[in-house]
């Protein structure tokens, strides 16, 4: 009898190995051989790349160490995936699935919709140039922005090749100049060798071997997309809202481009610290659901700027002063405090 049980246990182990082999298909692969390219050419080709329509799955591995906010659990540490479709000309669709719902962002080039299935609300925003898509879900936009902004203060190098989402890619590495006082160690961008769009963005912080943030395609397919993907009609029973004009971003885009209005920046490059005034709470307006109470986060700090609370993450620091000023940068706390002191 005992021997039979051992046999059964062996069969269980074997089947487990089969499952592991089937489900966890390894992504490790040899480095593809590609003709050498200079960083300048690579960046330029990224700036002008016309990848055409594509769709894919984007994986987000977030170890930024942001405080857990009840209203925005998707910003907390963890892994997420998103499905993206791009039709070119500002047309795009992003689906952020969750266990019991989905958030869908659709842009037809002029009108942008954010549909949240959990409470069946659709938020419409129109006008203006087609905004950059949510950098969290669009590695293309996020990386291009970072390359453009940071070339002046960084060492830029093409560090070999890699295979991302089954496609050969160049790895562009941005390292801060030694004089920069940033908490970031390295930013690596894998650029598709053929289509020249960024396939993966990896942010490494000082003092940690694992990436603080990695956004990249798990798979990507180039080719024509169904045009109906880029239109959105609110389904029956949906609460349709118009997004307030610029400033109040769509709920799906907490990391919208550009600092808020009335802000100033101190320093440049990797040292840049953004200082702005916290928007006053409007009594009549309902705060966004589960809006974070900044007063409860971080640790108290005092300095020439007065009193406040410092929120430190893996890649940056924010100080919220008691008089409502906020300073944020990818720098250690003293640099942020210093920026708050300058006028």
């Amino acid at each position, binding site marked *: 009898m005992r021997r*039979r049980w051992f*046999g*059964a246990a062996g*069969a*269980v182990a074997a*089947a*487990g190995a*089969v*499952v*592991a082999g*089937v*489900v*966890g298909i390894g992504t490790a692969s040899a480095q593809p051989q590609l003709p050498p390219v200079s960083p300048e050419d690579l960046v330029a080709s990224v700036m002008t790349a016309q990848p055409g329509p594509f769709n894919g*799955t984007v994986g987000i591995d977030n170890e930024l160490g942001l405080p857990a906010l009840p209203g925005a659990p998707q910003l907390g540490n963890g892994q997420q995936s998103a*499905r993206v479709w791009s039709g070119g000309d500002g047309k795009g669709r992003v*689906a952020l*699935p969750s*266990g*019991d*719902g*989905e958030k*869908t962002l*659709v842009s037809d080039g002029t009108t942008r*919709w954010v*549909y949240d*299935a*959990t*409470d069946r609300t*659709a938020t419409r925003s129109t006008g203006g140039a087609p905004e950059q898509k949510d950098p969290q879900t669009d590695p293309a936009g996020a990386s291009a922005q970072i390359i453009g902004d940071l070339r002046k203060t960084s060492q830029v190098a093409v560090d070999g090749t890699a295979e991302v989402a089954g496609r050969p890619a160049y790895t562009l590495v941005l390292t801060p100049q030694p004089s920069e006082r940033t908490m970031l160690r390295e930013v690596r961008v894998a650029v598709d060798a053929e289509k020249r769009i960024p396939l993966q963005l990896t942010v490494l912080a000082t003092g940690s071997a694992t990436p603080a943030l990695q956004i990249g395609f798990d798979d990507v397919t180039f080719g024509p997309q*169904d045009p109906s*993907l880029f239109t*959105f*009609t*609110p*389904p*029956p*029973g*949906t609460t349709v809202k118009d997004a307030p004009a610029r400033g109040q971003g769509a709920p799906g885009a907490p990391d919208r481009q550009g600092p808020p209005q009335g802000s100033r920046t101190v320093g440049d490059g990797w040292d840049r610290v953004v200082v702005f005034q916290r928007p006053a709470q409007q009594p009549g307006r309902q705060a966004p659901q589960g809006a974070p109470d900044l007063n409860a986060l971080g640790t108290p700090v005092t300095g020439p700027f007065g009193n406040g609370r410092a929120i430190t993450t893996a890649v940056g620091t924010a100080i919220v002063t008691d008089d409502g000023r906020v300073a944020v940068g990818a720098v250690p706390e003293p640099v942020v405090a210093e920026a708050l002191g300058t006028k």
Partner: protein
Amino acid sequence: MTAVLERTHAPLGRVVGAEVRWVLRRPRTLVVLGLLALIPVAVAIGIAVAGRGGRGLIAQVAGNGFVLPVVALGLALTLLLPLAVASAAADAVAGEAGSGTLRGLLVAPVGRARFVVMKAAGVITVAVLAVLIIAVVGMIAGTVVVGGPGSLITLSGTTLGVGEALGRIALVAVWTIGQLLAVGAVALAISTFTEHPLVVLACVLGGMIVFGVLGAIPSLDWLQPLLLTTGFGAGTDVLRDPLPLDGLESSSLRALVYVVLGVGVTFWRMARRDG
């Protein structure tokens, strides 16, 4: 009489038919199937009374009746459907052994392989019927009690016509049957090792709960690909548009491995069991 004397073994179809009739005549099978039919009805009445509001997948049913079968199957798959299938598998071998009728079956002119096929057919019948009852009652309750626009509003905010909605419901039903067959195969394997049906039920339900707990522990996330319960949420994917197949495929593949494992152990054990 002469026919019996000439035959060396019974035809498979007749054996399977007899087993299926035997399973379906058990009052407990009928009671379980009847109770499962109440799940979508209860959800529909709850939604109709409570109206809109609330979060979670159940809230998606409000004003969107075609979602009801999908949600009801998802709810039942967590524990009740595995319970129904496991009890059928427990009766199939352990129950017969416990009541002393297994010995008679094993000396009958039925090969051991045929015996396993026959018992598996009974379990499959219960799994298929249970899923179909929830899906059909869910569709009826969704249409009659909840109502809706006559189309399926997906989680992605798109609207699917009746034909495609029915296709999605059929897909989730087939997928759910696949997951249940995995549970049933493992339950049947356990059933061949004991004469106490309760042991089978305890093992299967305990295993489901342990799997659920293991899957919820973040530091054990490397274990997730091995756990059958990991893929149970994939049924929700039929409510997304365009339909993502990754989750449904990987969970079906995982279920297939469990089926192969369970059936293999069952054959191996029944070839040696003497009563």
